[in-house]
């Protein structure tokens, strides 16, 4: 499933290049949205669906980490001083 989601996301990025609608206005979706814009609104919706699939099927299991106490000086490095 993870592989399928990745393939679909790559496919969506390719389909984003809708050169076939480059010179077209019609059909006007709902009578007022030119096809070139309606297509890309569709791309946005498809992206929402695909990312929902990614969240469900490809969520990394090891990412939630235990709480660490808050500190404003996390770096293990110390400022370099001129020698």
């Amino acid at each position, binding site marked *: 499933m993870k592989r399928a989601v990745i393939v679909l*996301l790559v496919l*969506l*990025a390719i389909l*984003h*290049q*809708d*050169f076939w*609608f*480059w*010179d*077209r*206005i019609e059909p*006007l979706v*709902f*009578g*007022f*949205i*030119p096809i*070139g*814009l309606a297509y*890309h*609104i569709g*791309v*946005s*919706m498809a*992206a*929402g669906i695909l*990312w*929902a699939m*990614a*969240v469900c099927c490809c*969520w*990394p299991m090891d*990412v*939630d*980490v235990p*709480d*660490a*106490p*808050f*500190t*404003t*000086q*996390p*770096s*293990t*490095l*110390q*400022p*370099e001083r001129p020698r």
Partner: protein
Amino acid sequence: MSLSSLNPGQTAVLVIALYMVALIALGLLSQLVLRLTVADYFVASRGLGSVMLLMSLIGTTMTAFALIGSSGEAWESGIVVYGKMASWSGIIHAAMYFLIGIKLWAFGKKYGYVTQIQFFRDRFESDRLGLLLFPILVALLVPYILVGVISSGTALQQVTAGAFPDWFKFEDAKLAGAIPYWLGSLVTCVVVLYYISAGGVRGTAWVNALQTVIFLVLGCAMCWTIADRLGGPVNATKMVLDHNPTRLKRDASPQDMEQYQQKLKAWQADPKAAIIKPREPKPASKVEFTTYLFIPLSVAMFPHLFQYWLTARSARKFRLSIIGQPLLIMLIWAPCVMIGIWATSAIYNGQPVIPPDLVDSNKILPIIVKKLASPVLGALLAGGIFAAVMSSMDAQFLSLGSMFTNDIVGHYIGHDRFSDRQLVLIGRVFILVVVALSYLIGLKLQGTRGVFKLGVWCFSGFASLFPVLFAAIYWRRATKAGAYASILAAAGTWFWLFRDAGYGASGEPGRWGLTPVTLIFAASTIALVLVSLVTRPPSPATVEKFFGSSKYAR
């Protein structure tokens, strides 16, 4: 005095003033509720849930660029702007949250990072990397802040025209009595400065969530009202088909150019009869369209977004934000793009809605709202524009303070030498200095820069730092020298191309039809890979810390 006795400009001033008072009140309320610790001020004690995180992230990423910039750019170049920015952003922003956001959140939580620079210092084992990155990140945030400064001043000036004719005089009679640009920008900056000072990130998250709901609802209401005044959406689009059909597609054929010339001649011969001055067709470049994919990579490097990522209570709280990004971006951009396209050809009461001599595309949205909505609704819609402007400025201001406090003062002078309150105060003073500088630049640039082009330059700079970030997380062989080379290559190429483009006056593709970001991104990536491969790999301890295994380290 009743509401009906106010003129439209005064109504707009009243509604916007009430809105700003409400924001200040919310800031005060959060100040009462919050403990003013550094953890609460800078990362809301890492306690935000899914809905608050989504609303804060959308409010932060959808700026004046998304409302005023998108409608202005649609007016200038047509529907292509949606495909270039909004649908690419829908795919890529979510990818950045998924691939970068949750990883950085995990590192932040595990090692206590508050800023990007803290992460980079540790990952690349270099203290001085912070000294290189800090001025670059601040310098890139300035044009982003400018987008808000310019938009708020312009919008307030347009929607309040006629409010106080005795107080504010203008050469342009149509603007007589308007709140001047300098005052509008100043008030916006002061209000944002106040409420972030009061509540820090947690207070700002509350305000942002409220503002996101406001501009989402009012954005849709704005589109509906404008369409209604133009005789419905079908009629509004028909006017574009009649006068500027190339704004409804991405190409312009020789016949389109011929028709444009004929319509222009007719308009020049008798402007009153032709009503609409035709706009020159602007065929889009397919290469440019494709290479705009690099622009949304910038979100991964926004310091203010990094700060919001850290506020999540757990990695799972990112899920709603990942799914919601493409859909909410669509809900915000699609109406604004339609408004921009309709604006090219809109006729109301037999008159063009947009003056034919208008050059400044930043004024499109405020003008159309002012002319087509009732005074109260127009003022509310203007409030929606301000919500978008301020919900981004606040996060940018906070991240400036956070970086200065933690990466410079705390790191080089020592956190132990200051109390929490002193650190917060130091952050505020630095924010004030940068905002004052941005405000002065904004005054200087009035009417000379489109917020869309300025925004694209800013995003190009942040996107060019993406290779370093991606490599820091996913390429264990990425080295300190590679990171320096990549950052210097990105900064150098960006500045060279930015200067070539008249410091943001132009956002057009410069070389070989490519967007500038493509070249900068390529320079940054090549430098990173080549230099990393020929320099000493990171220590096993660092590889172990960030990758869990030192398999590839020597």
